[in-house]
């Protein structure tokens, strides 16, 4: 399906071409946003905003690049802008950049709403999402693209515009950091046993 997207028509702001683009990639972009922001309304709004931004800045799209990778990049940036905005609204948020976010305790979000998570897996997913939020953006993105979107190192490297070895390093650091955080969380929260 992606081969059918006519880049020239997109650059001419052709509505039919943009409709094809939305139909082709809406599910991927929506699920990507839902992966970063586990709230269905926010993910829908931000993924739509990604298409609107793509429409406005289609002239900056370089021929030869993958339109899907380009859309992913736009959506990821918008998701992190949204996360930064919601973090700023929290109390004492202005002081947070002074401290290392990786040392923050895991805080389970109250508005967690991901319909793709089966009930038996929900508690673990909640904890994982909360732990992911405290990772640096590039580690968070690499982990999501690998674990959730099922991308390989090369695809992640293209999407994040970094080298394959950087992706490997990011994934290694993300896993190590998550393991440490989760260990601490489960040691403190003794009620996880069913």
């Amino acid at each position, binding site marked *: 399906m992606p081969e059918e997207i006519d880049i020239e028509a997109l650059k001419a702001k052709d509505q039919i071409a943009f409709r094809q683009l939305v139909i082709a990639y*809406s599910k991927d972009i*929506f699920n990507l946003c839902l992966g970063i922001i586990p709230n269905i309304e926010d993910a829908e709004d931000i993924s*739509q905003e990604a298409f609107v931004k793509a429409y406005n800045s289609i002239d900056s799209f370089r021929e030869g690049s993958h339109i899907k990778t380009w859309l992913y990049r736009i959506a990821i940036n918008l998701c992190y802008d949204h996360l930064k905005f919601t973090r700023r609204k929290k109390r004492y948020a202005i002081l947070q950049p002074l401290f290392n976010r990786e040392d923050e305790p895991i805080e389970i979000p109250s508005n967690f709403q*991901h319909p*793709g998570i089966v009930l038996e897996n929900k508690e673990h997913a909640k904890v994982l999402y909360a732990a992911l939020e405290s990772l640096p953006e590039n580690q968070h993105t690499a982990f999501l693209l690998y674990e959730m979107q099922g991308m390989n190192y090369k695809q992640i490297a293209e999407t994040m515009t970094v080298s394959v070895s950087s992706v490997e390093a990011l994934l290694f650091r993300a896993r190590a950091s998550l393991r440490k955080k989760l*260990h601490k969380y489960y040691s403190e929260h003794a009620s996880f046993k069913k």
Partner: protein
Amino acid sequence: METRDDIEKEVDKTLTAMKNINAVDIPSSYVEKTMQRMGSVKPAYNAGRYAVLKVAAVIILICINAYTISRLVESPAQQPEVQTKASIDDLVSDYQVTDISSTDWLNNKTNQNEQP
């Protein structure tokens, strides 16, 4: 109390939780809403053109103001003098006075008023 192994198991389960997430279908109205949002966006060249027009309007206003101020600064005393001169001339012609120091014209006016 949980053992270290229990904690390790929980950590492993949590780390693989993302692999078991199912892809979510988009809402039915998603494509239409997105197309509407795209349609409501003004084309970029219009925004640029309006910005240029705004800047041009501001520049024109600044030029007019600068020209006016410079004209006022150039001859600040001339303007009132002309006005004063004009008003005295008007007064003379209105009351038909040739010599300002004479007061006869006042008497004439009074006599005219006294006549029935």
